[in-house]
């Protein structure tokens, strides 16, 4: 690290090469770089993406690092993300990064991995999941539980269909129970929050690592369930945290939790570290 | 926006013409302006019209934002008192605009830059006259810059 360009805040420019509508509120953007090779990054890192005249926002890299393209997935929730949703092919955006740390791929090798994604939280997991699938021999077992509020909020739908067809990855899809007990017409997956699924399936903690990302409340409840009901150790859970960030460089002070800069020391954290933070979140 | 952009527009456009943002109520003034057009009454073309449902929809924020975005003058126009499509909207608007007017006058803004008029749907001629008056006044008042130096690079509090 410490890869300091002389002009720290001057971004690179990227061109929108393709736009995929994932859901009514989520789009994936494929970016192309006309001024040189695309930035090199590792699974779990993020960048500061922006549109001149609107501002910058933090998004993780949602594509695997070994592909020639780079993708980000953006949910329309605020000023900058709304402007992203108005982009067309050929429009120019700005990019600083990659910033932050990454998933400890080498330490995960040889383990059974359980991915748990929630809504847009699937984006930071996507790159790692694909990397694991492409090096399937490195891992004993791969499972994915992916939950969303509604069917129309599942991202990467086509990929999910492909995943479900694979025999080297066990996929469980779940939607939030709107009215508990009532099946959703035509829904192929389950209707449940994630913790009940875990407590029913009881994936054994032996040799297993859980990698999760989603809304904070989901992360909290998943961790609680794993730690208290399934005998996992905090060290077996990895997650990536969402905090408001502006600089991404450990300067602006916004993402602090205790003495930790989420943008520099994270965004990927082991749950053991998270337990040592001040009880702020 | 953009002191910079405003400047570039000015550099290319000669001779200088004032930019006026006009907030027109849908029911009276907009129709009045329409009538001026269909009646082929000639008048200055300096007003950029923003149609609003009622003069009471015009928030002072919009007026200041128009100045910030480079307007040299702002005109709000609605139905005559008593004629509001919503019965009393323009009465409320009047109090609100009086308050803004007082403040703008107090801080020394040229009174020619912020105007209010009542123009009914049948007053095409009056609309033309209002625009002529506003434009002529602004031609005299000249371009609007609140700050002499638009760049704050290195600005520190207390310039002593």
């Amino acid at each position, binding site marked *: 690290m410490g890869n300091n360009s002389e002009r720290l805040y001057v971004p690179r420019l990227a061109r929108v090469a393709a736009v995929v509508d994932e859901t009514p509120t989520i789009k994936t953007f494929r970016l192309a770089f006309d001024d040189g090779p695309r930035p090199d990054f590792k699974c779990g890192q993020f960048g500061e993406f922006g549109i001149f005249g609107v501002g910058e926002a933090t998004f993780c890299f949602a594509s695997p690092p070994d592909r020639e393209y780079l993708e980000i997935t953006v949910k329309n929730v*605020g*000023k900058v993300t*709304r402007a992203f949703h108005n982009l067309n092919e050929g429009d120019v955006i700005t990019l600083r990064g990659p910033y932050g740390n990454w998933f400890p791929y080498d330490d995960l090798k040889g383990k059974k991995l359980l991915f748990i994604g929630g809504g847009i939280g699937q984006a930071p997991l996507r790159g790692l999941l694909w990397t694991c699938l492409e090096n399937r021999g490195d891992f004993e077992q791969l499972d994915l539980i992916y939950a969303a509020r509604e069917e129309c909020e599942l991202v990467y739908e086509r990929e999910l269909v492909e995943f479900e067809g694979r025999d080297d990855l066990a996929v469980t899809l779940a939607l939030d129970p709107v009215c508990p007990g009532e099946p959703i017409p035509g829904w192929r997956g389950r209707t449940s929050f994630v913790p009940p699924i875990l407590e029913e399936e009881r994936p054994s903690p032996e040799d297993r690592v859980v990698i999760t990302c989603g809304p904070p409340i989901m992360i909290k409840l998943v961790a609680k369930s794993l730690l208290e009901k399934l005998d996992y150790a905090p060290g077996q859970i990895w997650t990536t945290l969402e905090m408001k960030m502006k600089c991404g460089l450990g300067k602006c002070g916004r993402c602090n939790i205790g003495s930790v800069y989420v943008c520099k020391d994270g965004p990927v954290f082991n749950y053991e570290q998270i337990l040592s933070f001040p009880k702020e979140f | 926006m953009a002191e910079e952009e405003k400047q570039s527009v000015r550099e290319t456009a000669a001779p200088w013409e004032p930019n006026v943002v006009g907030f027109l109520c849908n029911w009276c003034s907009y129709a009045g302006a329409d009538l001026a057009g269909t009646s082929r009454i000639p008048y200055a073309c300096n007003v950029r019209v923003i149609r609003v449902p009622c003069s009471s929809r015009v928030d*002072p*924020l919009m007026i*200041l*934002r128009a100045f*910030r975005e480079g307007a040299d003058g702002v005109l709000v126009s609605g139905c005559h*008192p*008593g004629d509001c499509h919503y019965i*009393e909207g323009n*009465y*409320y608007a*009047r*109090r*609100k605009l*009086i*308050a*803004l*007017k*007082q*403040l*703008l*006058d*107090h*801080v*020394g*803004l*040229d*009174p020619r830059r912020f*105007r*209010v*008029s*009542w123009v009914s749907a049948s007053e095409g001629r009056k609309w033309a006259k*209002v625009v002529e*008056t*506003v434009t002529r006044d602004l031609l005299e008042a000249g371009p609007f810059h*609140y*700050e002499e130096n638009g760049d*704050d690079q290195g*600005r520190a*509090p*207390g*310039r002593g």
Partner: protein
Amino acid sequence: MATIKEELRAAVKKLFDEDRIDYFVGYVEDYGHTFPAILAKGSDLSRLTFDRKSYNNLADFLPELRGSRVGLVCKQCEVRTLNVLAAEGQIERDKLVVVGVPCPAMVDPRKLPADEAGLDDLDESYWQEKCRRCLERNTPFADVFVGERASTPTPAEGWPLLQEVEAMSAEERLAWWREQMSLCIRCYACRLACPLCYCHQCFVEDNKPQWLDKSVRPENNLHYHIIRAIHLAGRCIECQECSRVCPVGIPVDVLNNVLARDFAERFGYLAGETAEAKPALTHYERDDKEDFIL
């Protein structure tokens, strides 16, 4: 004879003992300052005070305590504020215990003498401007009144600084305000110290659309202060807290004074005089004076 401090402490103790309030908002003295405190049952009441440095408008803390039963020290500034808040449906009167006090007039913090021993005897020239315009020194609708009722001197008219600024030409005023606005750091203390700026989301924080640029430049600062004054038009009770709290000393309240005076002259409306009067901007007369409309 008990001092006002002692009476106040006894009265508050009684309110807690009789379980009439959950919190008490008053002034305490500590580390050389008099400042507002929110006290709960079990707090040490021995620092409670009411003196000539009891500046803050305590009504500012009511939103934070909404839902609880609150005792509140109310000098005339709070009284007028509560009237405005009541007219706007913002207070739960049945949950409020108004503790009335005779106001001795506040000393202008910028004129505070180094030796504060003679604070009680300082004459009008040391007062905050608002105190020379006070209409009633005693709290009219107090549930509990402590201390002895004070006499109210004849209020002075007009605001000296406003008159000074208005004596300038338009160009001079523009230059004067530009100078003042170049000092502003947009800390928003003026907004947050104001008990009538209670909106949860203020226009300065809106970003869809973003009404106000974040860059701290005189024109943006003026934009902010004008809109704030407009939002207080016919509501501001001229407690001068906005000016007092300004760290860089901008007399922000001059803008409010302009509108308060104009509303009094045009519409015969004085904010906070009663809780019943209709707020000036939610009301109109058919023949409101319009002297500038084309």
